[in-house]
């Protein structure tokens, strides 16, 4: 079968078409690569179209040849299967890839690993195809480094997440991000501090308590200046008090801290 067939018999070129659903009929084992991917990545087919352009021989051999690949479709495939709870994003701000693990925390991954997954999917598809499907392109050409790179590169725009994706107030949580500190700082103010008229909470005490929380959660230590920058607005919002530099504690003057706020002794979970 040569490339001229695509020119002389264009009616044999097929895009994926959903099978009409028959009542009481069991879903059949997919017999073409298009159907194989459409069964697993239905949403992506709806948005980006047919995974492949297939050439189907109308003679008795019923041979199926993959003529071309839809890079956009496969870029969106890397975004993951929502029916399995998967979610992969490209976080442009950090130029980094993240995937959501089974503990619902986004963890970093790499372009090379995504390319590995892409190639593995094509291989799995090839191994489950019947004999009439020509597997050369599926096995070789579409799994080449060049095509894999093109897919992963396209995925950067298809799967780009906005800069507020991991914000402290967003439902998405990632490992090893500054947001973890921000979340903890918010929790610290909400759950560990309380209004206490006449009491003074020293910045140093607050910082030590927060540092022990970080240690307990195996998070990176935070500089005192960063801690201060993080909690000052939260404390202002919660208790309507500003950080002062002129407090007097046990005869010491010029102590930094907050008036009318106290540190509870219980540690948030």
């Amino acid at each position: 079968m040569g490339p001229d067939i695509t020119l002389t018999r264009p009616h044999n070129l097929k895009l994926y078409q959903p099978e009409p659903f028959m009542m009481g009929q069991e879903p059949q084992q997919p017999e073409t690569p298009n159907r194989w991917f459409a069964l697993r990545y239905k949403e992506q087919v709806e948005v980006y179209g047919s995974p492949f352009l297939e050439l189907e021989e109308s003679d008795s051999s019923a041979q199926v040849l993959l003529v071309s690949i839809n890079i956009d479709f496969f870029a969106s495939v890397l975004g993951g299967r929502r029916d399995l709870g998967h979610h992969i994003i490209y976080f442009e701000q950090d130029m980094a890839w993240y995937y959501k693990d089974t503990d619902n925390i986004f963890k970093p991954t790499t372009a090379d690993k995504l390319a590995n997954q892409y190639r593995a999917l094509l291989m799995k598809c090839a191994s489950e195809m019947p004999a009439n499907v020509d597997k050369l392109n599926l096995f070789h050409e579409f799994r080449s480094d060049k095509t894999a790179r093109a897919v992963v590169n396209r995925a950067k725009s298809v799967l780009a997440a906005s800069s507020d994706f991991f914000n402290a107030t967003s439902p998405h949580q990632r490992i090893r991000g500054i947001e973890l500190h921000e979340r903890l700082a918010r929790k610290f103010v909400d759950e560990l501090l309380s209004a206490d008229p006449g009491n003074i909470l020293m910045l140093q005490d607050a910082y030590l308590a927060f540092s022990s929380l970080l240690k307990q959660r195996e998070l990176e230590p935070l500089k005192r200046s960063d801690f201060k920058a993080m909690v000052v607005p939260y404390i202002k919002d919660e208790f309507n008090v500003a950080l002062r530099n002129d407090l007097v504690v046990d005869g010491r003057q010029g102590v930094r801290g907050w008036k009318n706020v106290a540190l509870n002794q219980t540690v948030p979970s």
Partner: protein
Amino acid sequence: MSTETNPYLRRLEETSEAKKKWAESEWLLNFLRSDTGQKPRILKDEELLEWDQTLH
């Protein structure tokens, strides 16, 4: 007795479906994890069904 009326058979069917999904999910995620050599996690039936419920 069909799976519709027999709760034991229904649970067996649900567990078997959840196992298939979990295996597929782990296969895909393992390509992205840092430690790709790790063994796939095996869940107890209750955990599997609980995980499957979170997907709906």
